[in-house]
């Protein structure tokens, strides 16, 4: 299979590079945590209990969402690699793949909706949209929640709201996250000052490649921390406000960089493009940094003829699961670095993502 074809078949809705503010906001995700009354949470449940929850949830999910292009997938039916790919696409969490959990996922055809069963909570409804679409993502998640609630008895309390395994989700169970590409704030080191200020507003900023990770490729995940004592609308509004301010700061920083050190910036971004196109060994960290640079170059109009959606694709496909799935083999770290370089070269050069190189081939 050609790389382009592989990527087309593996691409998921949120990677398209579309949506509002898509030059800075890559994707918006809203997750609702729900549990069933009368069953212990997955962390404490017996295998029988977990299976009973799965049966009940699957029944309700298939009744309510099947026929609209949803598929029910048990984690135990997937290969390790397939599970890894779902994690790398941000469609399921690493926790769901824990064999203790009897985990399953219900996925919509366009992969914008994924409903996890037996993750940290019995049910986690997740909607992921391209660009900044907080309202839209929440409305979609809320609609699925309403459908499920008709059939499933949720654990809910007058005082504490939706009862969840982790006290940090109690109340609304809503975690709304905006995946942002903030290279100029990172290059100018302003992000270090901004993060503590945002944290005081009850908003968390962290790396997007797995929780607790560094902001690989200058991609940050900005999400609400507080879920109790605020309505869903207030949570979304506050996150939306912080996101808007971050976008404004990033735009200003980009403008300043262009005005004050255009040549140095152009040099850095084009060197990164050169690395992506010609390197023979591409470790994850370097690939992520170079992708971030090229993306910035495209956004600023300094690098032409490269499609932003290809940058989004490559940010996902450079991860170990995808690489190994494409290679159709288990690879060591060095093999992965070689294969990653090959894949980038092919995608940017041979597959014609860079028209100028395509042209020179034709000449």
């Amino acid at each position, binding site marked *: 299979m050609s790389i382009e074809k592989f990527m087309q078949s593996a691409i998921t809705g949120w990677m398209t590079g579309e949506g509002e503010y898509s030059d800075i906001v890559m994707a918006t995700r809203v997750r609702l945590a729900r549990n069933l*009354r009368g069953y212990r949470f997955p962390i*404490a449940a017996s295998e029988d209990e977990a299976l009973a929850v799965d049966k009940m949830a699957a029944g309700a999910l298939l009744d309510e969402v099947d026929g609209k292009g949803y598929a029910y997938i048990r984690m135990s039916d997937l290969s390790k690699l397939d599970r890894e790919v779902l994690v790398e696409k941000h469609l399921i969490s690493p926790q769901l793949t824990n*064999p203790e959990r009897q985990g399953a996922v219900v996925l919509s055809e366009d992969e914008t909706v994924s409903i996890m069963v037996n993750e940290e909570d019995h049910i986690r409804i997740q909607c992921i949209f391209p660009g900044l679409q907080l309202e839209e993502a929440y409305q979609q998640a809320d609609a699925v929640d309403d459908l499920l609630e008709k059939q499933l008895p949720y654990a809910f309390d007058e*005082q*504490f709201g939706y009862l969840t*395994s982790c006290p940090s989700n109690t*109340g609304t169970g809503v975690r709304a996250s905006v995946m942002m590409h903030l290279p100029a704030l990172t290059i100018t080191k302003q992000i270090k000052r901004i993060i503590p200020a945002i944290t005081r507003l009850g908003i*968390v900023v962290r790396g997007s490649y797995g929780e607790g990770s560094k902001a690989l490729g200058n991609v940050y995940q900005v999400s609400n921390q507080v879920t109790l004592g*605020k309505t869903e609308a207030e949570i979304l509004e506050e996150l939306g406000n912080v996101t808007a301010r971050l976008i404004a700061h990033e735009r200003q920083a980009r403008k300043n960089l262009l005005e004050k050190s255009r040549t140095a910036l152009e040099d850095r971004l084009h060197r990164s493009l050169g690395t992506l196109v010609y390197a023979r060994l591409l470790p994850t960290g370097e690939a992520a940094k170079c992708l971030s640079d090229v993306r910035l170059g495209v956004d600023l109009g300094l690098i032409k003829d490269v499609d932003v959606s290809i940058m989004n694709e490559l940010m996902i496909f450079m991860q170990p699961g995808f690489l190994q799935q494409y290679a159709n083999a288990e690879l060591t770290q060095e093999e992965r670095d070689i294969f990653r370089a090959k894949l980038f070269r092919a995608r940017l050069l041979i597959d014609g993502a860079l028209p100028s190189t395509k042209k020179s081939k034709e000449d």
Partner: protein
Amino acid sequence: MICEKCKERPASVVITKGYMGESIEHHLCEKCAFQSEAFHFSPNEEPLSIQQFLSHWFGGGDTFQTQPKRRGTTAHQLECPDCKLTFGNFLDIGKFGCATCYETFKERLPHVFGKLHNGQTTHTGKIPVSFNELYAIKRKIEEVRVKMQEAVEAERFEEAAELRDEARMLQQHLSNGGEAYNVD
């Protein structure tokens, strides 16, 4: 890596135990971590490290302090009847085992939630429609009981008996609604 305790399941939780000024790492599976009371926890998948946060706020401050010194209070030994999680264990792992934990630790939770949610302790967001129905029945029962009391005080016994039957019926309805969903 395999869990050190059960030697069966994969280890997914890293526990750091302080001993004589040194910290020792233990790798446990989630189940063993849930049952264990002997350590502080740091599940590697938890970004905010809620359990460390809680331990710091409520457990006496020092992560490397040995457990017995800060245990022994009855509050820490409060145990959930459904999942057997103690309050002390909840502070260690930062997770509830079931919905009943909320009821069991009810008195102490506003304090915990206040720290985690910027001082907020009460839900103000979405309410499930089904819950609204149950809630409406509860309110109705309260109303009927007040009326019944008034009827008794006014010595309108026939009316009071009718109201008592109505309250019983509603109560029955309420418990059916709740129990219909329970596991056997």
